[in-house]
């Protein structure tokens, strides 16, 4: 097994799918010549030509719309939105066309599009390049939403997403891009909608996803020293969401902390707690805790920025609350 970065795992997934299926293509700002700001699509335009890896004008609304339309007539577009913050520009065709087409037209067409969007806080790039807005899309029936956090998952799930006939939004945390991990040589896929247990434990369950999986790991390591055993569930997919795995873990630990990097209010953390209490109120020995970012835009100043998002300490504190 090769050890590669998450960034490379995305490139691999896209390259293999471009080669496998001539209906797959990539479009977005600077995905071609420049190979995307993070180098993720580097070389692909040369390899597959200017009609398979398409540099777009700064027209997020319409180029996403073009992708949606191309999907309706049988293509499998990979549309890249440079930062998840810019999804606002493309909301209409994502929500009102991509998500609703199959239903609204009675199954006459599918929209097998994948929209990739780097998201999350970090690097002092301020309010308009740092957003976590994944729960908007979880709230839109007809979409799927994935957030793979390891190179292995990313490659396998992105490939599944490309082959899925429903529209999928893939949120990629910018801080995860350089994370390395093992990825097998040959072809493999990972089904959408299955969570992964990152760490087995018996005292408290942490339900999280994306970059917060790593921060939760740090917290778990620290807690381990005190003999507190944490089970970490990396959801990987937010819609569909694998409540079977979540509830099985809670059945064991009877305590749960849900961690998201999104501003807590209106985030998926509430959604998950809502489902947990519906599905297993009696399993809970303590109130489920939610940890999320503070409810502010993201500041430029890095000290302020650091205050916004959950740190290891915040997660540890939440875990302790479940143990009080």
């Amino acid at each position: 097994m090769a050890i590669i970065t998450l960034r490379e795992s995305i490139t691999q997934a896209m390259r293999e799918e471009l080669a496998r299926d001539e209906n797959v293509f990539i479009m977005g700002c600077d995905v071609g010549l420049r190979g995307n700001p993070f180098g993720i699509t580097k070389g692909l335009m040369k390899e597959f030509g200017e009609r398979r890896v398409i540099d777009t004008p700064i027209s997020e609304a319409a180029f996403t719309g073009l992708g949606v339309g191309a999907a309706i007539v049988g293509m499998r577009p990979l549309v890249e939105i440079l930062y998840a913050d810019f999804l606002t520009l493309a909301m209409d065709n994502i929500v009102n066309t991509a998500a609703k087409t199959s239903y609204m037209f009675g199954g006459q067409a599918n929209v097998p599009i994948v929209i990739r969007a780097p998201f999350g806080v970090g690097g002092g790039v301020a309010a308009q390049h740092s957003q976590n807005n994944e729960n908007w899309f979880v709230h839109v029936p007809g979409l799927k939403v994935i957030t793979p956090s390891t190179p292995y998952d990313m490659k396998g799930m992105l490939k599944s997403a490309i082959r899925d006939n429903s529209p999928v939004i893939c949120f990629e945390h910018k801080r995860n891009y350089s994370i390395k991990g093992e990825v097998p040589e040959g072809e493999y896929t990972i089904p959408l909608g299955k969570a992964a247990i990152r760490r087995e434990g018996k005292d408290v369950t942490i339900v999280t996803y994306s970059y917060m999986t790593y921060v939760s790991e740090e917290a778990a390591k620290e807690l381990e020293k005190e003999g507190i055993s944490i089970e970490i569930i990396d959801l990987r997919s937010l819609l569909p969401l694998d409540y079977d795995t979540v509830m099985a873990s809670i059945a064991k630990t009877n305590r749960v902390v849900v961690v998201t990097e999104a501003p807590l209010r209106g985030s998926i953390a509430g959604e998950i707690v809502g489902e947990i209490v519906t599905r297993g109120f009696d399993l809970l020995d303590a109130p489920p805790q939610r940890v999320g970012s503070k409810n502010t835009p993201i500041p430029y100043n890095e000290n302020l920025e650091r205050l916004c998002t959950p740190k290891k300490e915040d997660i540890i504190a939440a875990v302790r609350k479940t143990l009080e």
Partner: protein
Amino acid sequence: MKKNKELEAIKKEFTAYKEMYVPDGLTTEEQLKMYSTMVLIRKFEESVKPLWMANKVHGYYHPYITLEAIGVGIISHLRLADYIGSTHRGHGHVIAKGGDVNRMMAELFGKDEGYNRGRGGSMHIADMSVGMLGATGIVGAAVAPAVGSALRSWIKRTDDVTVVFFGDGGANAGSISESMNMAAAWKLPVVFVCENNQWAIATDIARVTGEHDLYKRGIGFGIPSYQVDGFNIYDMWETSKKAIERARAGEGPTFIEAKTLRLLGHHATDDNWYRDMTVVEKYWQIEPIKRMADFMLENDIITEEQLRKIEEEAIKKVEAAIEYADTQCSEPSLDSFYDFVYTDGEIIE
């Protein structure tokens, strides 16, 4: 006499007016076919309002009446494999592209046999099997996706063409400008057709645009652009021919502003109280169906007898469609509630 005076007045104020002639390459057979299609659209649309009043059809219903020459004029150049993108006023586009009035009527009735299995209704009418990509409730929003179908043709280097319709109101949606730019940049095989009926519900184009000749926007983006007389199917046909050929040859997009005037209310029950209908009335004289019929009679292209037959047939088809939708179709089963939210039978509750 009054009629002549009115016609002169129209010619003065309706600058897009063009006299009719049969353009090169347009056969009699094709003319009759186009005429029949226009009549079928008209009869279909005329039948919906009473059904709406009778509560058989609900939701928002926007008739294509007096726009028939636009859709039919250009779509008659298309093949089955070509695509069209539509507006909120989509019935005419469905019929022109070869759709089935029975399934369309069934959809308006909300029946399971309808195009959209009762999920969509008038505002979302679609027949993907003939390349009619669907009407939309978000004005302007269907343009970018339709240009996406042209993007497919460009990627695959096939020679099929996409025609996309939008109104003068929809034209002000930014994603259309964005789409025009991309189509021009990459020479996508698409024809933009702006059905400029000069009104967006109760908003006169003059109050919300600085340049009322909308074809000039196409020029700004580097797209060959034309204004045609939207009441004149011959004019529409001729300009469309060039546009479709250009697209099919891979030479890029064309913008056609089909100028017309909305003669009816915006939707089923809109009585036009907000506008001066005395200006509008006279335009019935150049409404596209009668105008074509008169021209064809004058030029011995058609007989009165043929005209009558075409009309009768259209009425029959529409009556049959109503009968079908009303009595032979069924309500969608409630068990199928989650169908089509996702694909391949996947259900995510």
